[in-house]
């Protein structure tokens, strides 16, 4: 069941289209990565979904909500660069936004404490936000987005600006969060998308160029190719490889033999037999798994 359905969503800035009519839907309980290079329209899309900016056409519909209901009750949003009232303490700020989301006083306070512990900044809850580090602010940002238990949590580039440790922490946190809510996050880093998400929406120039479950997208863009790495210094007889019936051609780059084939299953057997018969010192053998990076580059280049 789709939690969120977007149809033909458009946005223009100063007359020129930024989002060119995109369609997608997000299923309940999934974790979706909105992937794309800088300037693809990821932030604009998220801001339209969150109600911060208006679309120039198209529709956004939320499951089980009529037109009248304020969509903001059901979404949590973390902007790319969250800014807080720096004179408030972390706890004060959380209670404030909880009250804005119509939680009563008691629930607001207990929810704030719970989330502060959850995101790991309970020790600093009475410190002024102005004194928080970047990673702490990001975690406070996630806490404020989660405060009213939204059905859809949207995070705009949640890890892009963090150092490796902060990045790891936030990714772990997201891994936990996706157990309890539907998660949509944007990123331009492929690894992050691959690591946490189940589904992929790839944007480029204001259009969705690829979407679907991670595995299916990979499958679809699977290149019939086998990568073989042999022991360093060993130079095999290329002719033996190209002589195999299923092999089209080979390329060698940085010690990796990229072998393009007609049928991966058949080629795998033939190659393995050949390597065994010739007693080549095999180090790595990889069958046709195009990385997202290849796909990403392909999409961006085209």
């Amino acid at each position: 069941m789709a939690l969120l359905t977007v149809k033909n969503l458009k946005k223009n800035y100063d007359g020129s289209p930024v989002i060119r009519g995109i369609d997608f839907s997000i299923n309940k309980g999934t974790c979706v990565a909105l992937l794309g290079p800088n300037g693809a329209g990821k932030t604009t899309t998220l801001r339209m979904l969150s109600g911060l900016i208006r679309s120039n056409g198209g529709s956004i519909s939320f499951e089980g909500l009529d037109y009248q209901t304020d969509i903001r009750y059901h979404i949590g949003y973390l902007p790319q660069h969250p800014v807080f009232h720096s004179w408030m303490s972390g706890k004060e700020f959380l209670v404030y936004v909880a009250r804005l989301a119509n939680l009563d006083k008691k629930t607001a306070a207990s929810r704030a404490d719970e989330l502060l512990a959850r995101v790991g900044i309970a020790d600093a809850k009475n410190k002024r936000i102005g004194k928080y580090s970047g990673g702490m602010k990001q975690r406070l940002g996630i806490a404020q987005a989660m405060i009213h238990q939204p059905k859809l949590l949207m995070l705009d580039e949640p890890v892009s600006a963090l150092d490796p440790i902060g990045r790891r922490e936030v990714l772990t946190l997201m891994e936990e969060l996706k157990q309890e809510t539907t998660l949509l996050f944007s990123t331009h880093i492929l690894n992050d998308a691959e690591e946490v998400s189940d589904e992929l929406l790839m944007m480029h120039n204001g259009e969705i160029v690829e979407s679907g479950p991670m595995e299916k997208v990979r499958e679809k863009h699977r290149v019939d190719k086998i990568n073989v790495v042999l022991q360093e210094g060993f130079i095999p007889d290329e002719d033996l490889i190209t002589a195999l019936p299923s092999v089209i051609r080979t390329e060698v780059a940085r010690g990796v033999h990229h072998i393009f084939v007609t049928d991966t299953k058949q080629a795998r057997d033939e190659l393995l037999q050949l390597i065994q018969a010739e007693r080549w010192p095999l180090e790595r053998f990889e069958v046709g798994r195009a990385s997202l990076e290849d796909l990403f580059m392909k999409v961006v280049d085209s």
Partner: protein
Amino acid sequence: MQFLTVFKREMLESGRNFKWIWVPLVFILLGLSDPLSTYYLPQIIESVGGLPEGASFEIPTPPPHDVLMMSLAQFSQLGVLVIALMSMGLIAGERKSGVAELVLVKPVKYSTYVSAKWAATSVLVLVSLFAGLLASWYYVNLLFGNISFSNLLATWFFYGLWLLFVISISVFMNSLFKVPGLVGFMTIVLVILTSIMTTVLDHILDWSPAKLSPYIRMMLSEGTISGDLWATALITIGISIGLLAAAIYTFRTKEMA
């Protein structure tokens, strides 16, 4: 509910950044300066060398309500400047910094958000004005003569409406512009324009908000509240509500963050 949440947060902020100290203090100082300087004018002249010999100069003691009006004139100049400065970042500042992005994705009504901020500023300004008037009134009574407390309250009420009008202009400007400095500038420009228009078109604009001051002077000297003052008060309230509604409307139609 949400109104109180925003209102309280605004109050807390005004407390933490000492607005609750310096704004009343500025009004008190403004209120004190005229009664004291007018009363001690002969001594002040004496202490800076006095008048040249042979010059005879009678300095008449002004009636008490004139001195109170001098204080109001201070509030109209420096007081308005202070209000414009302290309220110029009210919403524009939050939008510029990006806090608005976090606040406005929560299900808070724009009308609540804007009006709560307006109310918080108004409370601070009205309290400060009262403190300033009280200071002025105390010394006027001490040094010049009696003005009744009920007259002081009436002055506070009617003059407070003028300041609420200024705050409403500022809130409206806050919804139009994202840069606090521009908001402050435009607020002052609009207040000055209102005053100039009222002077130039005196014969038409009988009930312009800028006429509150002259009618208050009449009220103090004659002791009765004229129909003109009531009418002007009502119109000022009307325009302020209109400005607030316009601010909320702009806020809704505009992309805020």
